[in-house]
């Protein structure tokens, strides 16, 4: 109390602060956001440690060790980014956007294929998936373009320009093919536009367009013999509406996931879990990790995870309101919505109410690119928060 009061009485705006926390920006970080993010990745490590010990013969810690390293790298990246003034990224928007498009395109040349899809560069220590980092890069660049072009052209022209800028990388990713990540790009684009002030009427038109697109992709195009989606993609997208009819094929994963989560009941089955322990649920360490949580830790564990995501989103939304400038608002909004979108689609997919699209659960699913990229996004949120706090004190004001 006493210290706080003395600080407030300090008048000089450019006073020198010697506290280490202050220097690192820790003092102005959003602690709830930090706790939510680190809590999620810690829970991920804990879950992987219990659920994947037998997955790689002779190496029980294969997944858990790596996920822990990714988590630590992510936290370090978050701390580093939080000390950078995010507004720099606005100036770098063209470079960022170019890097984004080039890195995604290079996948087609150098990427290695996994399960029929080229998504990642095979680096010495892990495979780097540029489209994961691309979620953040797209938001940073697009928000810059939106701010930059806010007064150029008519509203319709602006909307079309944003759409083109956002959908171009989404199309690249879609062609890898990675439908899930492409959808995240679309969601992020719409989120930036949403906070960029695109009129409601335009969103209504875009919404109508999406409905028509879905109808064409899933119904019309296959009907005339020129399917746009690969067979397995289409089956996955539609089978969730009636999983029993597809219980041998695409609906199988989802059925098993539902059974896994349901069998966890209130308190979970712990090591007696069978669905996620005996391979009934595929991809249990990545896309279906929520099923592992549901079965092992039950309703309690699943709600804990959902609560952490709710906290994460709530803090992100809070930062939207705090941002010291419009660029921060747009970036924070884009990050918040893309996180919300990924969580809802992934958990919904585990619960059988959303189609299987291959979207990882941020910070929970095993995978370096996803974990680190998400931490970097959280780091940007922290930066926006820190800059806002500092500017409220009158320092670094515009």
């Amino acid at each position, binding site marked *: 109390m006493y210290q706080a009061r003395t600080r407030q009485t300090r008048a000089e705006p450019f006073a020198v602060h010697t506290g280490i926390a202050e220097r690192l920006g820790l003092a102005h970080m959003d602690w709830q956001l930090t706790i939510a993010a680190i809590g999620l990745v810690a829970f991920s490590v804990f879950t992987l440690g219990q659920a994947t010990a037998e997955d790689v013969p002779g190496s029980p810690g294969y997944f858990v060790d790596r996920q822990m390293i990714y988590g630590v790298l992510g936290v370090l990246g978050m701390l580093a980014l939080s000390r950078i003034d995010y507004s720099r990224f606005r100036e770098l928007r063209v470079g960022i956007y170019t890097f984004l498009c080039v890195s995604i395109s290079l996948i087609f040349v150098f990427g290695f294929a996994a399960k029929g899809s080229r998504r990642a560069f095979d680096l010495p220590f892990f495979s780097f998936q540029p489209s994961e980092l691309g979620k953040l890069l797209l938001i940073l660049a697009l928000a810059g373009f939106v701010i930059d072009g806010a007064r150029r052209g008519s509203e319709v022209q602006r909307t079309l320009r944003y759409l083109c800028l956002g959908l171009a990388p989404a199309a690249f990713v879609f062609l890898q093919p990675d439908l899930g990540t492409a959808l995240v790009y679309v969601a992020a684009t719409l989120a930036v536009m949403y906070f960029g002030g695109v009129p409601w009427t335009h969103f209504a038109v875009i919404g109508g367009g999406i409905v028509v697109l879905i109808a064409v992709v899933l119904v019309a195009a296959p009907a005339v013999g020129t399917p746009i989606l690969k067979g397995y993609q289409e089956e996955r997208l539609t089978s969730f509406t009636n999983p029993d009819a597809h219980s041998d094929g695409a609906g199988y994963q989802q059925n098993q996931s539902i*059974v896994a989560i*349901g069998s966890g009941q209130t308190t979970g089955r712990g090591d007696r879990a069978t669905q996620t322990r*005996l*391979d009934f649920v595929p991809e249990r360490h990545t896309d279906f990790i929520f099923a592992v949580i549901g079965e092992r830790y039950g309703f309690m564990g699943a709600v804990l995870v959902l609560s952490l995501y709710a906290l994460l989103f709530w803090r992100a939304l809070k930062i939207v*309101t705090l*941002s010291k400038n419009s660029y921060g608002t747009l970036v924070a909004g884009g990050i918040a919505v893309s996180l919300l979108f990924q969580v809802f689609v992934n958990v919904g997919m585990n*619960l059988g109410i959303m189609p299987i699209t291959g979207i990882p659960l941020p910070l929970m699913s095993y995978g370096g690119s996803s974990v680190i990229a998400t931490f970097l996004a959280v780091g940007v949120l922290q930066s926006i928060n820190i800059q806002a706090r500092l500017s409220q004190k009158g320092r670094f004001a515009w």
Partner: protein
Amino acid sequence: MSPPPGDRIRSGNRLALRIAVLGGFAVALFAILFFRLWNLQVIDGDSYLAEAQNNRTREYRVLAPRGDILDRDGNVLVDNRTSLALVVDTSKLPEDEAEANAELKELGGLVGISLHKVKRTIREEEEVAAGAPVTLRRDVGYDLVYYLEENQRRFPGVQVQRIFVRDYPDASRAAHLLGTVGEVSEEELEENRYTGLQAGDEVGQGGVEETYDRFLRGEPGTTRVQVNAFGQPTPGGQLVSKPPAPGDNLQLSIDPKVQEAGEGALGSYPSNPSAFVTMDVNSGEILGMGSYPTYDPTVFTKPMTQAQYDEYRADPEWAPLTNRVTESHYPTGSTFKMLTALAALEGGVVTPSTTIVDNGSIEVAGQRFQNAGNQAYGSLSMVRAMQVSSDVYFYELGREMNQTDLLQNWAERLGISHPTGIDLPGEAEGLVPSKEWRDQLFAEGGTERPWAVGDNIQLATGQGDLQTDPLQMAVAYAALANGGRLVTPHVGMELEDAFGRVLKEFDPPAQREVKIDQATRDVIMQGLHDSAQTPEGTSYPVFGGFPIPVAGKTGTAQRTPHDDQAWYVVLAPYPNPRIVTVVTIEEGGFGAETAAPAALMILEAYFHKQATAVGGETVAE
């Protein structure tokens, strides 16, 4: 510094509204997830838990080892060896037909079966039992098992199962009475005695394997195994299991020495089909039974082609699968004279002291019947007639008895032409020709003439239309020896469990008692004894030097178009026999020349063992 261009965006109500809308939207999304979770885990959790439990377990049948079959000394005649079988669960094959075919083709290549044949096997087994795992090949090697284990993901639905295969340490020893095992047929599954079995289960086929199947086969157990999503058992995942109940061991009354000697004796006439049976005259226990040619039942434990199988059936004259002791019938020649004598004495046609003059032949209704070799024996009593096997003496009896059914009645009373009830499947009946039978056959146009006195004369010496088998003759002679009791012959002696505890003893009651006068019996027994062991007796050259007193009768049956069939029936020891041995040799000629020496080998083996038996409880009387 001018305000940044986007500043108007975030000012005022517009941003607040958008944040509020997004916040509300997010609350709605989280609420959806929350209630879906609540629904799945808290409301419906029980049923999902049950589904998960069901998901992870598979029930496997664990085959029960079939009981061993032992001889009366406890030597193993049949036991099991374990083997590995390649089994395909067709429901787990890839749905895509091309993929499934590729898998089956690769699998077939590993065991040397073409895809075409693999698919045919599957189709055939599916017809019998849809959905049951299909056994592609038995007796696969460990190399293949290891290979499949290492590559199990490439072969979904393929399992290696431990199976039991019948093993015959002595190859063809007692093959006919043991029988074989084979997969239960569709028709058999409908039968009561096979309830509870599944298609593909093995049951006894023929012999005691079939008769005692319900004791031998045991009961399969079940193992519930925790499996992963690929249906593969997971380590430490054996949950509940009901152990299989092994089949009971069956001890046969077969005496290994007698059996060995009998089979050896038959084998000494390698080009003549033949048969022997040795039975305890008081209990009906079969001490030895053999039929030649024989076969090695081991061949039936391996996959057989139809052609291989047909080979065993190809020649009806040779017929190695036929048990000639119970499934064939022949005329018996002079061994039948025991029955003729019995009928005549008991029917009062003659007395033991009645004499008939044998001039070498008789003429009846313009037909001449003569002794073998045109011998003339002069004036004969019953004992003497049997000793020298005078045909004329018995022709006269046959002629005398033609007015009545005395001869037929006595033959049938002693079991000729009736199944004995032995515990072996497929027993034949036979025929005692009678006036009634032939006249009816004639009326139906089945023969060119009605009954004539010559038919009864033929029957009196065991020729003509008489059809019987060695076992029926053994039972009839045993009845004479034991004073009129028609025993039920049996090879099964007792059942033991796996620990050797006796569960059940088989002692089937006699078929019936036939009243035979003691004097009649003694006269016939003496005639038989004289025939075997006094000079001038028909088998004296064979049994004259045998130290144990016996009562035996030769037989030489005319069996057109074949050469004469040799018979010998012997009761030993005389005058209170314990065993009866019957030997018959197709186209063996005179009974004294082939069948009697074979019978001697069997008796030598039997009495040698009796004399040297440890413990002293069975010493020759």
